């Protein structure tokens, strides 16, 4: 059980390891098969066919109607920006974007920028468990709304949101529906061909492909205005020479994700649940943040009250345990997580929140190791905290 020098990586919502099979699939495209997929010669053409193969694998993971609905991009943020800006430019008479208070900064900060440019932005609030206020959503989505953008699953607390229902509301009002599915892909089974989602963003490095490659799904029949202007790549929808190795890796990762999606929802989920049960049993004054009824199988967000998250992470790091925190201090920002604040989690608990996020590469031994170390870490910091003493009376 002792794993003194091995890294215990429980920060898979931040990024994941590249799967060995993915790396292997990529190598030829970083070495001998360096052709440009746009070239007319066979040397480039064989690369183009690999890019198309990857597109098909990704379309298969998403349950898309056709592989032509996939546009490869550089990352989740690019996909988000491309989707929302396209939606606004093809609906010029509408001036509103409806999103949520708990989006990733890729969407939140784009919306802030849009507001500065004169667009209206409405943010759907959440309740104490981070669930969307659907009544407010119905009020906000109106005839002036061009795009509704709601994440499929939240990166901090793992909540899964009712994207199909929201897409129907959007369509009822003539608006487009986009979802940032960066955290959901590979964990939530998807059948986009049977859904009303118009656009979906994803990022490779969240499911064992490398960083620097993402994709945007645009449903057939939905008009699209390119974000990156230039060459004819991606059928004129995303200029720039393809990141061939990254795309091939993304395709392989999609294939693997499809194979392992049941495992994510059984074995990986069990590890997460084991960690939570162990923490609740061994440490007082903790709270699990998020919606237990609708949550990603790999994500756990736990508040350790009366202490601060960065300190917790620093002490865990000494034992080579990697997690992240919604605390202000960890990012260099001075405010705790906007997600926890939107949920009304008290500051006392928000500053001491730790996110553990699993992948299929985690093991039960690792969970046991964390459970052996964590109580001591919490106790040490509470021993220094002025509030813990007060709390103890």
């Amino acid at each position, binding site marked *: 059980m002792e794993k003194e020098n091995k890294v215990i990586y429980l920060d898979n919502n931040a990024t994941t390891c590249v799967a060995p099979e993915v790396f292997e699939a990529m190598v030829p495209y970083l070495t001998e098969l360096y052709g440009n997929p746009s070239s007319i010669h066979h040397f480039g053409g064989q690369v183009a066919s690999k890019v198309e193969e990857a597109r098909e694998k990704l379309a298969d993971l998403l349950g898309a109607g056709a592989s032509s609905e996939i546009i490869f991009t550089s990352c989740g943020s690019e996909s988000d920006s491309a989707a929302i800006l396209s939606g606004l430019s093809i609906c010029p008479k509408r001036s509103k974007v409806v999103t949520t208070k708990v989006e990733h900064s890729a969407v939140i900060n784009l919306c802030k920028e849009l507001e500065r440019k004169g667009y209206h932005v409405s943010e759907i609030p959440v309740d104490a468990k981070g669930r969307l206020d659907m009544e407010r959503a119905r009020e906000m989505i109106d005839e002036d709304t061009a795009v509704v953008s709601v994440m499929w699953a939240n990166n901090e607390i793992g909540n899964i949101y009712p994207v199909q229902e929201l897409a129907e509301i959007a369509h009822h009002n003539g608006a487009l529906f986009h979802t940032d599915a960066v955290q959901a892909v590979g964990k939530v089974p998807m059948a986009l061909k049977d859904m009303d989602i118009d656009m979906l963003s994803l990022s490779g490095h969240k499911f064992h492909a490398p960083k620097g490659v993402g994709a945007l799904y645009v449903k057939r029949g939905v008009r699209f205005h390119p974000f990156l202007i230039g060459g004819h790549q991606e059928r004129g929808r995303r200029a720039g020479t393809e990141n061939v190795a990254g795309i091939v890796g993304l395709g392989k990762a999609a294939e693997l994700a499809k194979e392992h999606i049941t495992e994510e929802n059984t074995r990986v989920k069990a590890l997460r649940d084991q960690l939570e049960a162990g923490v609740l049993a061994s440490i007082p004054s903790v709270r699990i943040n998020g919606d237990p009824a609708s949550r990603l199988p790999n994500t756990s967000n736990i508040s350790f009250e009366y202490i*601060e998250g960065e300190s917790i992470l620093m002490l865990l790091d000494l034992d080579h345990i990697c997690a992240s925190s919604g605390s202000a201090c960890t990012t260099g*920002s001075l*405010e705790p997580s906007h997600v926890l604040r939107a949920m009304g989690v008290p500051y006392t608990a928000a500053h001491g929140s730790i996110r553990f996020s699993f992948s299929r590469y985690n093991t039960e031994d690792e969970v046991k190791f964390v459970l052996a170390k964590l109580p001591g870490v919490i106790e040490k910091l509470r021993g220094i905290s002025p509030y813990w003493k007060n709390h103890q009376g």
Partner: protein
Amino acid sequence: MWNYNKKVMDHFLNPRNVGEVENPDAVAEVGNMSCGDALKISLKLDDQGRIADVKFQTFGCASAIASSSALTELVKGMTLDEASKVTNRDIVNVLGELPEEKMHCSVMGMEALQAAIADYKRKHGEKVDETTEDDGDHEGRIVCHCFGVTDAKIRKVAKINNLHKAEEITEYTKAGGACGSCLDKIQEILDELWRPGTSEHAQPAATPAEDFEKLSLVKKVLRVQDIIDREIKPVLERDGGSIELVDLNGNEVQVRLQGICATCPNSKLTLKRFVEAKIHEFISDKLTVVEA
């Protein structure tokens, strides 16, 4: 990932003087949980009036804990007079260095110490100089409402640490670190503080309206140009815009908005509420400002 040095890590992992002094002569608590860090210190003096024992409890990040620990080591054995001269720089010196974004942790240590000294004086009937030592005008008004930081604290921390930019004040006091709406105000306070020559208000003297009327046309133009250059242009340029004086026709100041201001839908408001207001303030309220 923060790159804390060995000394900071040592004070974080092995904090000195944790807890509460029994029967303390003074206690103080600064910060609070909602701000993300808080420090409580208690201390006891010996017969010679030196700090014999001092303990701390901290809610906060590694650098907050390390700063508190360093503070207690630093002040042990000092008289209260000596301790009152301790600044956040001294705490940083004990630690070697802190990341710039974490400087507010050292400032919290200084504040807790000063609050404890004030507590001692209060308990012993001594006059407490509530206004901090070198900022004797007033207790200060709140500039940053998110973190409750006053102008007095901003000036004080700026002077001790030689800070000239609003962003530095954020690193040292957190002020402006949440909604950011006070950053311009903080910069104004700093600009005023560091204005060369005098710490007094060095605003350009307003010309009485009658005097302005008596000026020759050339002098009028120069006067308007001067106010635009000094009072108006720098503010617009901060937002990516600019302005130029096109003509002065009777009492009509004709200007051209440039940069982002030229295409900004709020340019009419900028013209009336800001540009014209400044012209009225510094020259004459008889003038009107129009776009050329």
